[in-house]
């Protein structure tokens, strides 16, 4: 009897010890040998937008670096806050990371209540992938040949000129509102849905006076001479559209692009964070990634870790100003 219970006790002790060792080695191994299985990369937008190609390129290169599968998963909805929230709320084990944009990370927390993040402190900044500047294009047969023509008419006739944007308070809407604010204009933005396609179509069909969007979706029409680009909302020349006037050359130079970033949930083990950051740095600084960005109209602007965090904090202040302008204007 006694022998039996001793045996049982010993068995229990052994089991507990084994489990503890297994558990310890498991977690130590998990951090050291990361990654040992597939990584999921959430994209908070529907496939087909400007975010999809860049995410898939990053995932492809990450796959090569880490030697595991990186599965791109689109989780669209609620102005990209659903997919972004899914990353931020995920278990911080390095197997769930994702894409965030300056809109979903910095703008939406100001407008939406109840999100899991309020500032850049609430998630782990890994690396900035790129910027994508907003462009303003008008139908090819429009009477405005330059941005100055357009702004002069907008100034003379407040609330007469209409510009289509892909969604109310999307970055391309905010950029036009910023121009309104700086130049004292009242250009009306008309929100369309459907990822920029309908907004472009409205300009092509002459239902609006211009369209504010991104070059990758509009380049086909621009090259074909159906749309004319009046301005690109960045400081210097835009490689993809060298003839477009950068807003940096006008008095209303304070503008912003949409930025795309890789984020992870807070609380990643140190070893994983360091490895992921190092690998991402290699990727965004690689020639292959840079030439991909250039060919597709993205601007390379590698910012790693805290540099990226700082940039997002800066956006927070800018967005607050625009929101104040919009509220005053109501």
């Amino acid at each position: 009897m006694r022998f039996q219970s001793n045996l049982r006790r010993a068995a229990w002790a052994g089991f507990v010890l084994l489990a503890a060792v297994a558990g310890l080695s498991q977690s130590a191994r998990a951090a050291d040998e990361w990654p040992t299985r597939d990584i999921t990369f959430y994209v908070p937008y529907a496939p087909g937008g400007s975010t999809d190609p860049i995410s898939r390129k990053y995932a492809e290169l990450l796959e090569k670096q880490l030697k595991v599968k990186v599965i791109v998963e689109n989780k669209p909805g609620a102005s990209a806050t659903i997919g972004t929230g899914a990353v931020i709320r995920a278990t911080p084990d390095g197997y769930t990371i994702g894409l965030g944009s300056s809109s979903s990370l910095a703008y939406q927390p100001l407008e939406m209540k109840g999100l899991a993040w309020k500032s850049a402190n609430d998630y782990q900044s890994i690396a900035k992938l790129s910027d994508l500047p907003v462009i303003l294009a008008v139908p090819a047969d429009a009477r405005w040949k330059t941005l100055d023509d357009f702004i002069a008419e907008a100034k003379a006739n407040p609330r007469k000129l209409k510009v289509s944007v892909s969604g109310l308070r999307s970055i391309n809407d905010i950029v036009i509102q910023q121009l309104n604010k700086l130049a004292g204009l009242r250009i009306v933005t008309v929100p369309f849905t459907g990822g920029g396609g309908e907004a472009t179509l409205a300009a092509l069909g002459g239902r609006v006076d211009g369209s504010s969007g991104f070059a990758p979706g509009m380049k086909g029409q621009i090259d074909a001479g159906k749309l004319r680009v009046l301005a690109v909302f960045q400081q210097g020349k835009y490689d993809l559209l060298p003839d477009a006037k950068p807003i940096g050359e006008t008095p209303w130079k304070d503008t912003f692009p949409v930025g795309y970033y890789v984020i992870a949930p807070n609380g990643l083990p140190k070893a994983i964070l360091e490895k992921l950051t190092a690998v991402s740095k290699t990727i965004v600084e690689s020639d292959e990634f840079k030439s991909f960005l250039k060919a597709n109209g993205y601007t390379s602007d590698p910012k790693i870790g805290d540099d990226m965090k700082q940039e997002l904090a800066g956006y927070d202040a800018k967005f607050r100003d625009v929101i104040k302008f919009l509220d005053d204007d109501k």
Partner: protein
Amino acid sequence: MNSLQGLLYGLQIAATPTNLLAAFVGAFAGTAIGVLPGLGPVAGVALILPLTFSLDPTAGLIMMAGIFYGSMYGGSTTAILLNIPGESASVVTAIDGYQLAKKGRAGATLTIVAVGSFVGGTLAVVGVMMFSSSLANLAILFGPAEFFALTAGGLIVMSRISGGTLASALLPMTLGLMLGTIGQEAVTGETRFTFGIPDLAEGVSLVPVVVGLYGFAELMLLVEDRAHAANRPESVKMRDLLPTRTEWKRAVPSWLRGTFLGFLFGLVPGPAATLASFAAYRLEKATSKYADEIGTGAIEGVAGPEAANNSAATASLVPLLALGIPFTPIAALMISAMLVQGIQPGPLLITQHPEIFWGLIASAYIGNVMLLALNIPMVGVWVSLLRIPHYLFIPLLLVLSVIGTYSVRNSIFDVWVLLAAGIVGYAFNKLKFQLAPLVVGLILGPNIEKHFREALFLSDGDPWIYVQSPIAVTVWLLVAAILIAGFIARRRAAFADAMAQESSL
């Protein structure tokens, strides 16, 4: 390069071993994916997207197109055999297709569908080839007001899609509209009716509702009633796999009507394939000589919509290729594939990358032939699936529909929606409410609202915008004409009935 030269050039490209293989793999995988409930064309193309990056662009796009056609076709198989539409475009196919299957005509119906898909797809390719440059601009003419006319008018016309009394259709339809308002709306981004559930912010998605409403409800009917289950055909003779002469003869005009209608819908941006199949069903009810039989198992009710949805799927390549603007999730995925490969879709595609433009068109011919060759022999296999014992088959299908539903958005919540929709579908079945109008409402509701509000934003609050363009006015007049014609037809039928009763007295 004129169209014929272009096509010959395209055939040269599409007929290389790599591209033929891509078309075959696409058509095959597409059919397999389409047959699985819940996994529709979008899921299929999305799953294959990463794979295309390693192929050359032409082969990648050909494979995606193959999956698209294949799954459009495959979705009707389960609709006919089991009353489980594989995707939303097959909802109307289920109405008559399932009745035909119950009469032992499953094989014949599947053959009619395969050939109808081929006819619709092939004729639409000819149309795309001949008119693509001139029709591309049609999409540009459509703005919010025109879309509003199309979708709201469509809702009115299609409210009576599946017969029955008006109340039996109106109630489910408005429930569908209501479900469509849940979640974050598209225009100003307000979140509605989510009760604090984050999953609801994305809205109620179509797949779990369709699979639940039809498939799950049907399976529940099978579970509850063994007598009903025993009614299944034990074995199907070879003769029954082929349509009879009459069936062929009745299918031809429906194919042609469906193809024409589907082509028009495909040119207009929007959920073309689904709308085209619903509209074609409605058209068959209005024009077919056998309109009385539709709803109770008429070959026209299957032939028209199936030709229409494949024709629309093909025609929707026109706005995709010529404008470079995606209007459906599938088109968006194809554009994504082009961009990753460094190809800029748009009006210049045909001159800058003729190999892609003509290769894709030519592959649509080849893909349609392959689908036909692949699926006619499969008809026997599909029909024999019905002979699997129910205690194996029902659990298997339940698991499949869960996997399919889950995979669309990777959401366990959607699986609960499937269950809820199944219970509603079961109750509506028992209480003789129509199910198809609910699906119509859910599809069209968000579109109607979006275009309605976008139009007001655009006109700065001027409501006259809805009737200012010739296209919008034409659409509204058509809707009125269809309603009046239907009213007169019903009155006449009632009058004839009354006369018949009187004379028999």
